[in-house]
């Protein structure tokens, strides 16, 4: 493809999705600077390989590059290497098996959601970003994350439960907080 044509195509198909690239990078990397580096590197890779995008949805294609770039970046950084491996490789036990009647969600605001999302493992975080923030279909998600469609559904199930568990006033919370929401004095 001639370069100027390649550039026009890139501008029309990839650049509109920089927000999506940044959002996914930011949720995978936590850190704002890292997220910008990852999104930018992914965008540049997308330019080099734009020929490969033919026939696939540009946003999904870009996000799969972002995802690979992010994991490669995080691995390379070896920042919190063990924590990362744990996050990616071993799914947490859902702390969700309490008596369902006690599950009352807190009032949800953006800050609560953000901190809840930050607490769950990356494989669940990314699937919520793709499904709820990008509104992607299971098929697109299965291509980006490279898992079967059935696994998309079960992973989403777990992801939503894990996030909910972060956002409920848990039974143990009742001992730390009184009815007015003030923390009990720790003095005995």
């Amino acid at each position, binding site marked *: 493809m001639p370069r*100027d044509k390649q550039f026009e195509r890139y501008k029309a198909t990839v650049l509109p999705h*920089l927000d999506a690239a940044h*959002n996914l990078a930011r949720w995978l990397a936590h850190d704002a600077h890292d997220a910008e580096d990852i999104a*930018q590197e*992914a965008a540049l890779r997308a330019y080099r390989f734009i020929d490969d995008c033919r026939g696939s949805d540009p946003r999904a294609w870009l996000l799969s590059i972002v995802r690979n770039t992010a994991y490669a970046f995080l691995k390379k950084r070896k920042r919190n290497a063990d924590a990362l491996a744990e996050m990616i490789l071993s799914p947490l036990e859902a702390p969700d098996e309490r008596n369902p009647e006690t599950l009352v*969600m807190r009032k949800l605001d953006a800050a609560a*959601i953000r901190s809840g999302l930050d607490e769950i493992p990356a494989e669940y975080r990314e699937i919520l970003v793709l499904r709820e923030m990008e509104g992607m279909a299971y098929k697109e998600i299965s291509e980006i994350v490279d898992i079967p469609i059935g696994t998309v559904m079960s992973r989403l199930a777990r992801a939503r439960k894990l996030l909910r568990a972060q956002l409920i006033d848990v039974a143990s919370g009742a001992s730390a907080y009184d009815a007015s929401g003030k923390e009990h004095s720790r003095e005995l």
Partner: protein
Amino acid sequence: MNCKDMESLIHGYMDGELDPLTNQSVERHIEGCTSCARDLANFRELRSGLRLPGVYLHAPAEMERRVLSQIPHSAVSNANRALNWRSLLAFASACVVLLSVWVVGSRQHNPNPDDAAATEVVASHVRSLMADHLVDVRSSDKHTVKPWFAGKLDYSPPVQLLAGTEFPLAGGRLDYLDGQPVAALVYRHKKHTINLFVWPQMSANPRFETSAIRGYNLVHWSDHGMTHWATSDMTARDLLDFAHLIRSAGG
């Protein structure tokens, strides 16, 4: 349908991913089950939460400009860049050739780095057969296999189909060789499996170098900035035929 079934189906339901029949039975269950109805309400609330302003983290305004500044897009700068890049590549390959002549001449008794690569290649080949992890993307279609590597590698490996030959493409896989992720292309020949590993390397030695390790034959060559290692348990003669086909298909 019971509550256990609902654990994941409820998600397919709220995401509109179920077939009409399943959808209906899920709906019916929720109507009669307060606990599942509450779950559904919870998850819908989470969804609205995740869509609140301030959760989606938009790219900073200057990111587009920064990306564009790193992309050579004017016709003039492209021509220059391509020219410079090509001459640089030519110069680099000349250097490598000179250097390798010197290295071969001066260090004949040292272990050849290619020996280490060959050992690694055979180990990967054997591993791919044992672990039943031969292909990540199963396809005889170049336009499926090649895009699959995009984003998994920072280069785009050449993929030759070899349709109509005795060596059809079976698929591709991501492997790890020479300290980096590499493309492994899998071909079949009768009952044999061929692994072709491809990764970028500046050396240019289009001549076939053959070797054998532990009963596996190897052919190694480099062209167009890529190094190729083909290995299989088929005869050296057949493997060389295969290498000829790949190299000539690559132009």
